[in-house]
């Protein structure tokens, strides 16, 4: 009996939507239309939909870029680069077509926010893509959604069809004389494709291996044309900035970190969920008040503040504002907004091992330091967790990880190395507790550990 998936059935199915949460400290901008039925285009229009793109059509392209730049909107995919500045790198004149590429390949462990945007407000992404296109003089946009999110692809494909049916996409949009097309594109399971150059390779129908830079995508991107690549949340924020103004948006956050962002709270929390909070919201408060604190009377042990690739923070390091610069100053990264909370029953060695197992699985093998480094680190950590570690291994783990940093085409190598270095540096004692045949102190007695 072979698996046969009926896509017609998927199209007609009522999906069980991911549950929404709320907290009084939330400031709803990108999540404003969540739970409001805005997948329906008429409902979206009633909720101020497609007003921003019409405003953008009446603006000078450079003014759109200036607005986005001054709003302090920074890349929500993790790198945190000023979105308007990124747009300004696209050359005005280009012999080849320019493209907008929306990155909806969300797959950084700890991150589940773009999913809610596609589920509840797909038109805001389309509108953001259109505005980006008008700003840089592009006429084509692609919205790439990871393969696992099939139900969201169904929602997005319908949203695009509805926008065409209304004449919002295609030739002469809103009677402006400007043509703009938006297409859906789907992945088929690959974390690395979330990296911008690998994303372009994947869209071009190839293995998702990274490209060397320079040239940067803004100059040479999809099929050699200048390409703006932004995360789905970044693009969904753009219409709100155009309507509300750069000042309003900037003031929601902290200096140089405009607006709000979706924080995905997960792990050992009483109330995990996706919350939209102002940039700069205090991490400790986020854990104890918004997330409801640690369940079962346990104590907090550590926090991974921005998805699995960001260095872990200890209990003493969490009284910080959650914006790109402050978390950077604390030695980690705001990343993709995935806040993973660990209580004191968690074995850090095991957590480090699971993180490394992921990166080993996802490494495409193009760059040797990443391919070999992740493999050796996974093997070492597996042996370590089983009690077969030696004292010199601890330094060796750190040495291996440090030598992966900055030596790969794409940041996957760094993403694997950075958290590992932090685990060893900040929780060295826990590594020492596993040494020389001692079983993991956190494992239940009698538990079987995998052999290397």
């Amino acid at each position, binding site marked *: 009996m072979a698996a046969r998936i009926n896509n017609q059935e998927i199209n007609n199915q009522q999906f069980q939507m991911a549950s929404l949460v709320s907290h009084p400290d939330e400031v709803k901008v990108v999540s404003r239309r969540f739970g409001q039925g805005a997948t329906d285009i008429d409902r979206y229009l009633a909720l101020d939909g497609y007003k921003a793109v019409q405003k953008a059509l009446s603006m000078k392209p450079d003014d759109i870029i200036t607005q986005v730049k001054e709003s302090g909107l920074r890349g929500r995919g993790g790198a945190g680069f000023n979105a308007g500045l990124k747009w300004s790198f696209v050359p005005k004149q280009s012999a080849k077509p320019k493209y907008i590429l929306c990155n909806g390949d969300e797959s950084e462990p700890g991150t589940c926010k773009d999913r809610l945007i596609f589920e509840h407000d797909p038109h805001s992404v389309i509108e953001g893509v259109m505005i980006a296109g008008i700003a840089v003089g592009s006429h084509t946009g692609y919205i790439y959604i990871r393969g696992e999110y099939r139900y969201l692809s169904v929602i997005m494909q319908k949203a695009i069809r509805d926008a065409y049916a209304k004449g919002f996409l295609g030739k002469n949009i809103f009677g402006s004389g400007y043509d703009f097309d938006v297409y859906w594109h789907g992945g088929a399971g690959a974390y690395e494709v979330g990296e911008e150059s690998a994303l372009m390779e994947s869209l071009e129908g190839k293995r998702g291996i990274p490209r060397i830079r320079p040239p940067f995508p803004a100059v040479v991107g999809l099929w050699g044309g200048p390409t703006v690549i932004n995360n789905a949340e970044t693009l969904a924020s753009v219409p709100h900035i155009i309507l509300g103004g750069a000042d309003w948006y900037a003031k929601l956050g902290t200096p140089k970190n405009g607006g709000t962002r979706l924080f995905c709270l997960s*792990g050992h929390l009483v109330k995990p969920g996706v919350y939209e909070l102002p940039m700069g919201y205090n991490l400790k408060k986020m854990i104890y008040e918004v997330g409801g604190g640690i369940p079962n009377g346990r104590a907090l042990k550590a926090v991974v503040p921005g998805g699995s690739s960001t260095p872990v923070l200890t209990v003493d390091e969490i009284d910080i504002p959650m914006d790109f610069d402050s978390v950077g100053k604390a030695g980690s990264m705001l990343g993709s907004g995935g806040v993973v909370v660990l209580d004191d029953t968690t074995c850090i060695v095991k957590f480090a091992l699971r993180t490394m197992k992921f990166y080993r699985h996802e490494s495409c093998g193009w760059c040797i330091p990443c391919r070999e480094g992740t493999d050796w680190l996974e093997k070492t950590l597996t042996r370590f967790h089983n009690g077969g570690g030696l004292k010199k291994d601890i330094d060796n783990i750190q040495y291996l990880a440090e030598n992966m940093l900055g030596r790969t085409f794409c940041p996957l190598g760094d993403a694997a190395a950075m958290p590992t270095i932090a685990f060893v540096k900040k929780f060295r004692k826990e590594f020492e507790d596993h040494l020389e045949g001692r079983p993991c102190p956190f494992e239940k007695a009698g538990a079987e550990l995998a052999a290397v």
Partner: protein
Amino acid sequence: MKFSDEFESRFAEMLTHYPTKRSALVPTLLYAQDEIGHLSDEVIAELARRVDLTELEVRNVISYYSMLTTKPRGKYNVQVCTNIACMLRGGEELLDHCKKKLDVGHKGTTGDGMFTLEEVECIGACSWAPAVQVNYDFHENLTTDKLDKVLDEYKKKGTQ
């Protein structure tokens, strides 16, 4: 090689979206796999012909993407996430439970062809962990009891 009308119209439309034919390849492979069950030699040859690539080039792409498979799977692909957020909330226990209940290991298929079990990386359900995806359906905030009910439902649906 016969695909559904829906597949054909989607494929024809997608080709108009890109300047190169092969750009349609990755999503097309997944839709083809959905219909046929796996990417058989015949499917690979057909799609290679359609996008002007060699079969080897298509296989090269297939081997990169974790959702694509050249081997048949069961009717329902049970994908258990054990990545960090799910691990902290019992993802590994769910996987162990499935292994015992279905009596198969990672990527194994039950004798009746009903279920394939797969340990997968983050599926984007971190705030609703632990989570399992069966084919494309998400099942979240699971316990072993809840998962039993979910699997029983699929089994019932699959034997109808």
